[in-house]
């Protein structure tokens, strides 16, 4: 039971984080997903279950992977992740804070290598 609640909280936190990274208010997301604004609020508070179809739609709106929203992938890319495609000398150009921000954004966004985009 507690695992289910923890899972829901994790998804809620990821949806909130992805919404913030997409620069959208709860009202804007509600309008785009034809939902009521309080529904978005409840989802982000972890008080309402999210269906698989809703996860797909959130991922589309936020331009992130469903795996990220489900908490199946880390919230920050590892420095040696092939998705990064950057040499160490490129990464060395950034301050630790800037690098952290970039790795977090890249962990969320979709590429064609991500699971849901295959086939």
């Amino acid at each position, binding site marked *: 039971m507690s695992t289910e609640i923890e899972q829901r909280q994790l998804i809620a936190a990821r949806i909130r984080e992805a919404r*913030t*990274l*997409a*620069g*959208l*208010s*709860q*009202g*804007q997301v*509600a*309008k785009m997903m034809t939902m009521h*604004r309080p529904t978005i609020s409840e989802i982000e508070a972890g008080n309402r279950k999210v269906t698989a179809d809703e996860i797909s739609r959130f991922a589309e709106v936020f*331009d992130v992977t469903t795996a990220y929203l489900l908490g199946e992938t880390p919230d920050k890319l590892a420095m040696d992740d092939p*998705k*990064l*495609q*950057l040499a160490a000398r*490129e*990464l060395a*150009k*950034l*301050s630790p*804070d*800037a690098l952290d*921000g*970039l790795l977090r*954004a*890249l962990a969320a*966004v*979709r*590429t*064609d*290598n991500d699971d849901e985009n295959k086939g």
Partner: protein
Amino acid sequence: MNRRTLILDGAQAASDVRDRLGLDLVAPVDPFAVAEGLGIRVRFLPVSMEGFYQKAKPPRIMLSALRPLARKAFTCAHEIGHHWFGHGSTIDELKGDGRDDTDIPDEILANAFGAFLLMPSIGVRRAFNSRGWKPATANPIQVLTIAGEFGVGYDTLLTHLSMTLGDMSRNTRIELGKWTPQRIRKRLLCDDEATGLILLDHQQRAAGVDLEEGYALAVPTGAAVAGDVLTQRQSIEGFDVYNAVRRGRATITTAAWQVEARVAPPQFIGPANYRFLEDPDE
């Protein structure tokens, strides 16, 4: 390959991209629309850098939300250059206003591409000629007007005119460089409250203008403004000045042109195509 050859290659590529997207070589372009037209996704991040180009499917450009509006547009154009030339993923670290200090060939190419995409020679020269102005004798307000029309920074236009196009002497560039957009703004508006100022006069040819909340927009006296994202601020000689107060879009119409004014939140974080989305929560 020497610097001059790289710059010419960058200029040619910028012209090719305009051709590809059906854009002429005169009018100002929106680099974010160009990126979208090439299938590149652009995002703003709260990260201290200039930009990041990710060679991936889909290709992505990530820009610092923390940089000034015109700088973000230039960096977007620069990163499109990396994409067009098939360069690998690259990070452009935080720079000052001087863009021409690099000796790295890929960076020279991307800089030239960005500069000519936003400031095509024919378009910039036409912008001065049509107003009866000359780069060699331009004053700061004239430079600010044309920089605003092309969506670039004041210093970026000065550098392009003097170092790349060769239309402005070094001495004139130094004299004009003593002025800052903030100082010109204060001179025109008599206060220091606006975070930016764009002047759209009768001769301008942009179809759209990007603003952030807090910017002021000067339009010809009597121009019709439709949309509550702009509120009237004051009148100055020849212009009505508006404040950009809310995220969204407005339409400005004169006898000579119609322009879409697009207002983003300051330091907007998120995909570029969401930055002007009206917010029902506001």
